[in-house]
């Protein structure tokens, strides 16, 4: 493994710029966004040059490390602040800095009217730094720092308009749900240390074959909990919908393309744990399948365009998590879907942002309609992303999603049928709700009020959208051409070959099947949403009602966690005051009561004191006499 001295700049530059923009304050208002964008673009430049450098090396030398300093060294726990750039992390570096830069550019225009634009860009740069640390850290602990860092960035950006209490609550909810996931990651780190005496990836990888299955399963389960928190997977998914409170570029970058996929990165990075524990893999695929259906169902009933897209993100990440649980061959497909998803979902979010920009921040799709004519570029770029997520050939999703469905079927037996069937079902629902979004927004009759004047956005906004749309078209083909990504990732994830062992169905059959269900879902949506009422109908089926309420996840959390927690807190406060402090005050009370009684003796008359003294001396003398005699 070679060493590189440039890796640190990937993190240091955006971190420094972020700190600078925050510390300088209003002085930097004029040029803050330019600096941040420039820094983001230069990290992309560094990423590309590192990528090129990797190509000039072969074998084990492709990966590069950089040790910065000794961070924590106590007893046999030794953690260096050091970075690792390998075939897996470079994918993320390019995605984060590439999409990140596009979104910086987009935000210049999108946040133009906000007087806190500089602060927004400072947060964005901070996010880039933290996310890069997450994917570049060479140990679980370094990863953890980035992991919490992106959580903080997400919190700050969701609550960017925190003067609105609803947004402030959404930010808090995201942070707390993430913290539950972080608990999983902390425990995974602790178990790793207790088992292997190290927390570095290489150390754990080397030790994994010697560990007991129970320990590996425990680590796997805890990593999965961490992934569920960060990637909005069941049962910690409820924060993602609320997180749409943040400005739309944030939703595109953090809550679609990069941060929420960190869970997929974590599981792929820990492939040596999951490969060794089939129980952990079963947990992973279960979570993936539940979430991909869960998100898809929720997506069908959302009228808020961003929340519909958020539900879709949840569902798509469910696909990725499912893929990571399918054994060595699945990791590469998960990463491929992650990359293509990064393009098309970010593109669609930016499209949604463009629509909102033109519609005075209206998010209700029932008040859109017929926007394609007025916003042609937005409509086309959104449409390309739409085709990609549906998996229509030859768009990106076709290559990545079909592979996942195929691999799921190839698990064989009942398991294969269930997983593959669920993935197919998910594809159908995806086609339904995405078509619904497109139809409600861009097609049909106009339903907006006369006051608003929908218009196409400036080039700063549609430029990035076009680039992302091109990515949604071509990335799938490029990544799967000659199994390029699979081969690229081979040294990290040990995928034996691209197709896996047994084949339940020929790839062609799977593709045709997938295409058929997609047409079914999309067709139904087109028919159903030809006309839509402007106000959501109240008389709807139980399923729609449930989907509108996120399948009662919040209701459940409130009833099971929040309410009892509140009652417990109130109870403990009362206990502390009445029982524990009460006991102390009781002792005080007893003493004061006894004193009250004894006080009566002190009547203030000298002679009674003197008499007491005399009697005391007399008694003393008698005792002395008795004792000595």
């Amino acid at each position, binding site marked *: 493994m070679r060493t590189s001295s440039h890796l640190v700049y990937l993190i240091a530059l955006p971190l420094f710029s972020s700190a600078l923009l925050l510390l300088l304050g209003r002085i930097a208002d004029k040029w803050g966004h330019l600096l941040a964008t420039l820094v983001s673009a230069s990290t992309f430049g560094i990423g590309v040059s590192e990528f090129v450098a990797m190509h000039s090396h072969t074998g084990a030398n492709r990966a590069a490390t950089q040790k910065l300093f000794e961070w924590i060294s*106590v*007893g046999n726990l030794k953690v260096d602040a050091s970075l690792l750039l390998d075939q897996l992390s470079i994918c993320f570096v390019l995605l984060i800095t590439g999409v990140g830069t596009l979104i910086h550019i987009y935000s210049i225009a999108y946040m133009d009217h906000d007087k806190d634009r500089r602060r927004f860009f400072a947060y964005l740069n901070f996010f880039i730094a933290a996310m890069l640390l997450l994917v570049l850290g060479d140990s679980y602990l370094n990863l953890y720092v980035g992991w919490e860092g992106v959580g903080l960035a997400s919190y700050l950006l969701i609550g960017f308009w925190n003067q609105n209490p609803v947004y402030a609550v959404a930010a808090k909810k995201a942070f707390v749900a993430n913290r539950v996931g972080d608990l999983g990651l902390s425990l995974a780190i602790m178990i790793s240390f207790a088992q*292997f005496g190290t927390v570095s990836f290489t150390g754990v990888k080397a030790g994994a074959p010697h560990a007991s299955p129970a320990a590996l399963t425990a680590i796997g389960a805890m990593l999965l909990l961490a992934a569920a928190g960060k990637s909005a997977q069941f049962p910690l998914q409820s924060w993602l919908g609320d997180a749409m409170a943040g400005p739309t570029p944030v939703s595109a970058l953090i809550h679609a393309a990069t941060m929420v996929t960190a869970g997929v990165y974590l599981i792929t990075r820990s492939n040596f744990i999951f490969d060794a524990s089939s129980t952990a893999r079963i947990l992973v695929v279960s979570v993936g399948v539940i979430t991909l259906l869960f998100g898809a169902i929720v997506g069908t009933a959302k009228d808020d365009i961003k929340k519909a897209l958020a539900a879709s993100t949840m569902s798509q990440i469910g696909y990725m998590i499912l893929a990571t649980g399918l054994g060595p061959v699945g990791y590469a497909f998960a990463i491929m879907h992650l990359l293509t998803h990064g393009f098309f979902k970010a593109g669609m979010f930016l499209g949604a942002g463009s629509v909102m920009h033109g519609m005075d921040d209206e998010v209700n799709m029932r008040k859109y309609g017929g926007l394609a004519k007025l916003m042609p570029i937005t409509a086309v770029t959104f449409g390309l992303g739409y085709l990609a997520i549906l998996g229509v050939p030859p768009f990106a999703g076709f290559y990545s999603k079909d592979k996942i469905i195929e691999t799921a079927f190839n698990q064989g037996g009942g398991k294969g049928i269930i997983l593959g069937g669920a993935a197919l079902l998910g594809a159908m629902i995806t086609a339904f709700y995405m078509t619904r979004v497109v139809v409600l927004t861009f097609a049909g009759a106009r339903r907006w009020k006369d006051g608003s004047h929908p218009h196409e956005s400036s080039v700063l906004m549609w430029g990035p959208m076009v680039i992302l749309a091109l990515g949604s078209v071509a990335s799938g083909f490029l990544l799967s051409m000659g199994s390029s990504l699979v081969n690229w990732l081979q040294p990290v994830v040990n995928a034996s070959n691209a197709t896996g062992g047994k084949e339940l169905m020929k790839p062609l059959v799977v593709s045709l099947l997938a295409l058929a269900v997609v047409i079914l879902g999309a067709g139904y949506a087109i028919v159903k949403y030809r006309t839509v009422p402007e106000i959501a109908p109240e008389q709807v089926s139980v399923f729609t009602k449930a989907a509108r309420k996120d399948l009662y996840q919040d209701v459940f959390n409130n009833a099971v966690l929040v309410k009892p927690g509140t009652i417990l807190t109130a109870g403990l406060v009362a206990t502390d005051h009445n029982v524990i402090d009460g006991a102390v005050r009781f002792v005080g009370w007893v003493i004061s009561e006894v004193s009250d009684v004894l006080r009566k003796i002190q009547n203030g008359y000298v002679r009674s004191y003197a008499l007491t003294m005399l009697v005391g001396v007399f008694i003393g003398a008698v005792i002395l006499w008795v004792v000595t005699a």
Partner: protein
Amino acid sequence: MNLLTLTIILPLVGVLALAVAPRENTKAIKLIALFTSVITLISSLLMLTKYKFGVSGFQLVTSHSWFKVFNINYAIGIDGLALVLILLTTVLVPIVIVGGWNESENGRWSVKTFYALILILETFMVGEFAATDVFLFYVIFEAMLIPVYFLIGGFGRGDRAAAALKFLLYSLFGGLLMLAAVIGIFVVSLHQGPGSFDVTTLSHLKISHNTQDWLFLGFFIAFAIKAPLFPFHTWLPGAARSATPGTSILVLGVLDKVGTYGMIRFCLTLFPEASKTFAPYIIVLSLFSIIYGAFLAIGQKDLNSLIAFTSISHFGFIILGIFAMTSQGITGATLYMVNHGFSTAALFLVGGWMIQRRKSSQIADFGGLQRITPVMAWCFFIAGMSALALPGLSSFVSEFLVLIGTFTRYPAAAVIGTVGIVLAALYVLILVQRALHGPLQEGNEDIPDLNRREKFAIAPVIIALVFLGFYPKPAIHIIDPMTSQVMAQASMSDPTPLAGK
């Protein structure tokens, strides 16, 4: 003169200077106090040049006979544990003076008295950590109560007299138990040679199990009250509510560390067998503290009580680390003491400024401060992030070390303790949301942002939090030899990794 003795005496010199200063000239009085504390800080930093790193045992040792009959000495010296805590003290005192520049003016007594008390307290605190004679330690342990009693009772708010009395009674009760144990260990030492109060000599005594248990409890309960550990904690919220921010910082940031300091210095070193016997029970209590303190913090309506309960939770972590008896646990706990000092200082400083401006300590009265006072809000936010141990800030390193150190020996305890990090997120973020976010509350429109003096006071704290978060090595480097020594004295070693390589 020995630098350590100099550091102890310097604040008293400042007190003499204060005594001759004119009573009305409050500015001169404050400047004298500030100057003294800065000189003391420099003197304590100079100790670093004389200190040999990586060496265990006491350094900069001085000993003068005090009571010959009982072989009591004025014996002082520092090791890693004492050094970091002395530095914490000398760094925090100037910050407290600058940060609470005007908090002395509504007291029952003069401004002069306030600063004299602060400086006397500084002498006692440094002396307490430096004492290597158990009797000297005990005397200062009790003597420290006097300035704190007057600081709370004379310069606080609200029900200050009652709070001061409660603090005094609790501490006196603990001190009494400790006195019994101090006498007890002297008697034991008399049986095994010339009687002694010297810590190093005492640590070589052979004490029977039964005696160890009783002596251990005497010390431990005194320290648990000071620390404070559940269920001995009820004096703390009242004291924090009533004391001035500066006093709260000194009490929670430094004075309470005497408890956890004593647990390492006396409980673990002098009574290793008893420590092992009681460790499981203490760990249960510390877990109780962590969870209970966090829940109570969530339920508080008063800003100062909330901070006090977060401290109870954090002290739970420190005690958990100490009694896990692994090198990560003890080093982490010691580092935690320092970080908690800074973290609490930041919370109380900014919280104090918020309360002073709003003239209310009810969290519900704040709201929307982020918009009108961005610098103050940011400082408070960073302090809050440090309280929830965000990676990148120093408290993360220590909390992580404590938890991982506990996990290798008591996995279940570490798992329960880890729940504390979720609860920490709750109490910090609920507070941040209510106080800083949301629409501007009525009555908050004219709240000014931090002035230059206040920025100057908070900056070093935040720098310390960030620096030690990224580069804790210097602190760990000082602490580590002490940890190895304590582990060796208690004949404990770290559990080995379970999976063979």
